[in-house]
């Protein structure tokens, strides 16, 4: 059955049909996947045997968990081991910086000297791949062979807001659709009772960390249809805003009220003939189901003690990173396509040894736990996990450099992230930087933010050139107009995902 016939069969509106024709015609297989997102799942079942759920490529990832470290962690104390900086401790690299042409932020541009800050922490090699990992991430050491560390990330932006816009929407200027909403738009839903794109805000535990604001721009659907926007599942109060019935309203009364409402709307539908009324009736039913499914989702009481132990002592504190990591796994289990955890406090302009240690402590064990938990449940094979900040940090110290204390300024030319699951090669390190982690010295292994986006889309079976949406006369894409590539070197193509 082609898109046209399906449309006829279920009486789709003109605009939706055109979108579908477009997909069917231009995006090859994506037509059916995008179609799936627009149809009620029960209808989709009627017209698809599942084999049509293929996109541009065979999808390795059915779901994505994106861990966003807002503020930008330093690569020098996490994944990019630089012995030379221990030797060059306190060396002034002013002339090196001038020669590099790199612009500096207003925070350090006026410094009279730029002394190299050594890393306060040591590194060791872990796993069969011998991945270098810092001592403040001991749990990461244990999962070195599960993750692929990319040390050659780079971006265009040098300040937080534009860099995060870049990271989450593909453009430094606000107003573009977010990565999660693109995936929701391209892939559709796997669970009729929950949203396709969920956002979690994890609290950071140190009161001293420098905290950057985040905004709903990072999970907006912007010009994409609104149902693709990230739904912020709150970790305090109602997990979904206004979800809980008002005081005094029992489930029984809610059901009666909705039954009556449905009859009234049905009558309007018969009188007026507007098919959008049918959608509204369905959405009220979805709301009623979410009133059940969301509390079930957020009720962690049935998690085993072993699981809590795996995620660590913080996992019982609502809103902690460990809690959010466990919640992410629960969302993944329930078929949520894109889960994004925001963890703030990674902006160490000063007091880096104290604050970075505490930030790492927040996430280290829970990340390990998440990967192991997914693995144990057979979910890691088709779940992609990304762990990343928005840029890197400078080799030189911001402010006063002492033997034990220092800070690092923003640096866009090189930073480190890791990816895991969905056929990303574990135990691998990709890309190298120079001795100051200033420039990437493996030119064919540079990974721009756009390349990361292209790679995430590829894992989900989507060709980044083809996932587009027309808005105000422009053909919008997550990866924008600059060239971008899928980082195939880090991907395992040996077997396809199960469908």
């Amino acid at each position, binding site marked *: 059955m082609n898109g046209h016939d399906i449309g006829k069969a279920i009486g789709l*509106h003109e605009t939706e049909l055109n979108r579908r024709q477009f997909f069917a015609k231009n995006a090859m297989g994506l037509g059916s996947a995008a179609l799936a997102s627009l149809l009620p799942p029960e209808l989709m079942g009627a017209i698809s045997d599942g084999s049509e759920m293929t996109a541009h490529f065979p999808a390795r990832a059915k779901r994505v968990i994106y861990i966003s470290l807002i503020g930008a962690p330093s690569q020098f104390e996490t994944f990019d081991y630089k012995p030379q900086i221990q030797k060059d401790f306190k060396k002034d690299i002013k002339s090196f910086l001038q020669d590099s042409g790199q612009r500096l932020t207003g925070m350090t541009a006026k410094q009279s000297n730029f002394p190299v800050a050594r890393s306060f922490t040591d590194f060791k090699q872990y796993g069969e791949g011998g991945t270098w990992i810092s001592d403040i991430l001991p749990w990461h050491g244990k999962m070195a062979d599960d993750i692929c560390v990319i040390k050659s990330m780079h971006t265009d932006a040098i300040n937080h807001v534009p860099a995060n816009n870049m990271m989450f929407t593909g453009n430094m200027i606000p107003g573009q659709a977010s990565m999660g909403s693109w995936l929701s738009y391209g892939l559709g839903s796997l669970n009729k009772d929950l949203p396709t794109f969920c956002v979690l805000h994890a609290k950071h535990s140190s009161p001293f960390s420098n905290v950057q604001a985040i*905004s709903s721009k990072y999970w907006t659907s912007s010009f994409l249809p609104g149902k693709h926007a990230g739904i912020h599942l709150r970790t305090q109060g109602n997990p979904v*805003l206004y979800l809980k019935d008002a*005081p005094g309203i029992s489930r029984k009364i809610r059901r009666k009220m909705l039954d009556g409402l449905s009859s009234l709307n049905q009558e309007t539908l018969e009188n007026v003939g507007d098919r959008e009324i049918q959608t509204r009736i369905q959405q009220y039913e979805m*709301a009623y189901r979410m009133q059940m499914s969301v509390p079930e989702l957020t009720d962690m009481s049935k998690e085993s003690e072993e699981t809590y132990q795996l995620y660590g002592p913080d996992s019982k504190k609502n809103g902690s990173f460990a809690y959010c990591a466990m919640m992410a796994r629960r969302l993944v289990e329930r078929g949520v396509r894109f889960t994004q955890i925001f963890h703030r406090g990674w902006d160490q302009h000063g007091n880096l040894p104290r604050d970075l240690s505490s930030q790492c402590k927040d996430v280290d064990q829970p990340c390990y736990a998440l990967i192991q938990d997914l693995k144990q449940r057979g979910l890691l094979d088709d779940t992609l996990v990304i762990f990343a900040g928005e840029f890197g940090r400078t080799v030189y110290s911001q402010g006063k450099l002492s033997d034990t204390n220092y800070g690092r300024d923003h640096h866009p030319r090189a930073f480190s992230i890791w990816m895991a699951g969905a056929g990303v090669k574990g135990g691998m390190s990709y890309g190298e930087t120079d001795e100051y982690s200033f420039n990437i010295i493996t030119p064919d292994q540079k990974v721009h933010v756009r390349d990361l986006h292209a790679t995430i889309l590829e894992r989900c079976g989507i060709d980044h050139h083809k996932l587009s949406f027309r808005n*105000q006369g422009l*053909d919008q894409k997550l990866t924008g107009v600059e060239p971008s590539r899928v980082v195939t070197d880090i991907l395992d193509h040996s077997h396809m995902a199960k469908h």
Partner: protein
Amino acid sequence: MSSLTSCDKQQDTAQQNKSASETKYPLGEKAPDLRVTEVSFNEHIQPILSEACYHCHGPDSGSREPGGPISKDDGQPLRLDQEKYAFEKRKNGKPVIIPGNPDDSLLIQLMESDDPDLVMPLHPTRSPHGTILDPEKISLVRQWIKEGANYEPHWAYITPKKHPLPKVAHSDWAKNNPIDRFIAARFENRGLKPNPEENSARLIRRLYFDLTGLPPTLEDLDEILNDTRDFDTVYGETVNKLLKTDSYAEHWTRHWLDVARYADTHGYQLDNYRSVWPYRDWVINAFKNNIPFDQFTREQIAGDMIPKAKIEQVIATGFNRCLPTNGEAGSIEEEYHVIYAQERVNTTSTVWLGLTAGCAACHDHKFDAISMKENYQLTAFFRNTPMTALDKHASDHPPNVRIMTDADRSKSEKLTLQISKLEKQLTSHRKKNIDTFKKWYDANRKDLKQPAGKDTKSISKLLKATSPTSRQMTQLRDYYFSKINSEGSTLSQKLAPLRKESKKINDRSPTTLVMQENEGKEAFAHTLQRGDYTARLERVTANTPAMLPSMSNLPKNRLGLAKWITSPENPLPARVTVNRYWYYIFGEGIVSTTGDFGVMGARPTHPKLLDWLAADFVEHNWDLHHLLRTIVTSKTYRQSSSISKEKQHIDPSNKWLARAPRYRLDAEQIRDMALQASGLLHHKIGGPPVKPYQPKGIWSVISMKKSNTGLYNTGSGGDLYRRSLYTFWKRTAAPPSMEIFNAPDRTTSCVKREITNTPLQAFVLMNDTQYVEASRNIAQRAMQKADTPGKIINHIARLIISRPMRESEIKVVQSTYNDALKEFTATPEEASKLIKVGNSDADPKLPAAQLAAWTIVANQILNMDETLNK
């Protein structure tokens, strides 16, 4: 830095998308009888060329292709978008288009070629963006060349004029209003007939929502429906009455705030409070006084530069201060100057010109004739300002003005004079008597010989400092001349109350952000390679794009720009504006891309109607009342919105308007409706933004500690029930109940809202305190006025949907009531919880279980699809 706007190099998908929506008729919609007797460039050929050819042979010099044998002798690539280039001789001695002779025209030969290596546009095997052109399209091009290959300027750049009204079969239906003639002409040839007029009560509700954003009160409704005069007369009078109300001004201000991307915070990082609401109040006043739209435009773009500008005209320039600004430490000023100027160009060109100028930030526009240079010439208009790029998170980030009452202003002026006079005296006194200070200083260094006072301790400490800093010395001098020296202290004592009074006046007089021009300086900018602020190319001065009428003698500054935009020669602003108004009323523009009238924008469904409305608008001195009156008194507007099977089949998207559109109300209309129906609405116009109910943690969870909008302190009293346009708008966490109903985030100018239909909307209407409280007050009003269940139900229904319920509906609602009453009677504590929701008190005289049960009913009706739709 990457591109500022994401425009696509690879237009393949866009074009196919476009072809899918423009050349295929939607399912079931009959292809109209549009046999082409004479091919028009604008109607038939330009869409084909822009889709198939312009990417490589269009306005963008960067991607233009030489086309090998068809390049010119000098190697100039082929360009097809403009007449003057399309007929140039190529290397083979012939132009690619030979008017009258399609067979000899290389264009046709290449389009018709079977050879995949030769065919144009590029065959899909040769380019991932390749495409195969429809034979029908090729034959249109063929016919066009045969008929002389006449080029026309892009339709939107031709000055609109009033075309003769078309003759129509429904002449009686369309006799009073030109709109109806144009509309009938288009639906008739598709075999459609207009819907009958909407039921009067429903029609009045629609009219009230469209003009005032509120439903009619029961009093208004009864007065109109019981009026025995001719309904057309009553309807016409109602329109005139509504146009003069404050609610009208507030409603249309709310539309404009989307356009102006108005918000109460800066939008970046700390996202602190910004005081620009006096600009919002200026807009309300402008609509209240129905100032002509051209004046409205000029004052917002350059009110500060109008000779002898009044303070109101300066306040109006807040329009260009509503953009998000950054104060993040370490940000680079120049980068933000570039971003802001580009943002203002994008906004101005979207709002008034229907142009996507932002595309030309990185490269020449692919489809519209705006070069990169011209884009930066436009940015120059906005760069000639003393405004700093970084806002320091200050609510009054200069330039700003302080707004005072006349009495305060004259008081303040007097005070300023007095203060400055006294300050001068004091300064000169201090200078003259510096020796007495020195004496006192030396005499008191060891021990302060003064009676103990509150400063004694700190002053003693300062006196004892062995090597005092200059700051410490200043402190001591200040102390001496205000407390010790007798004339100095007399002067200081005189000054203190004046300063206090002046501060008091300032504190009660709000500031608002405004524009300011660098006096006597030329407005300029640099073209930037791919929009990168560090990659400057040439210096350019302010100017407007060459494809539009020139600025001629107008000054090359913002005032000149404002005058140029509203000059009668400019074909765009009137069209773009009437189209946006049409969209506000009908839910879809005549041009559906309300912000893009360029070559790649949608084409008008009713081009002659659009031209007529635009010309009529300008003829009537840009009078918005006249425009709205013309639209809402048309038969087209007054039709019923029901959709017959036949119409669903022939015109599923209601492009031809043989029925009134039916679509969901905006977020603000829904909330304001609940407030009005419940009687809670607090009618107060203007003033600082207010904070109605909002769930806990919306602000705090995303804010920085230092932000002054980190904690949401819910307002009290009337502030909970003001119209929604007054709700505090924090950019990084917009009011959630508004956002869920598609209120835009106010980051960028919004000329068209999305309409979604989601479960989250159900949650808001069922459970948000605002709606639960409103439901109870609606129930309460009905119980106070009516005694039987039937009457109560109809009272509730009339408050919300402006009509009594049908028997069948009453049965459903009554059954909900009965079930709820049974349960609430059994669980009185639950009933009491429900009726306590919100700050307003429940009427203690009403039985709690009944009130609770009617609250459920009121909420049920509030959630009806009919309630939420126009």
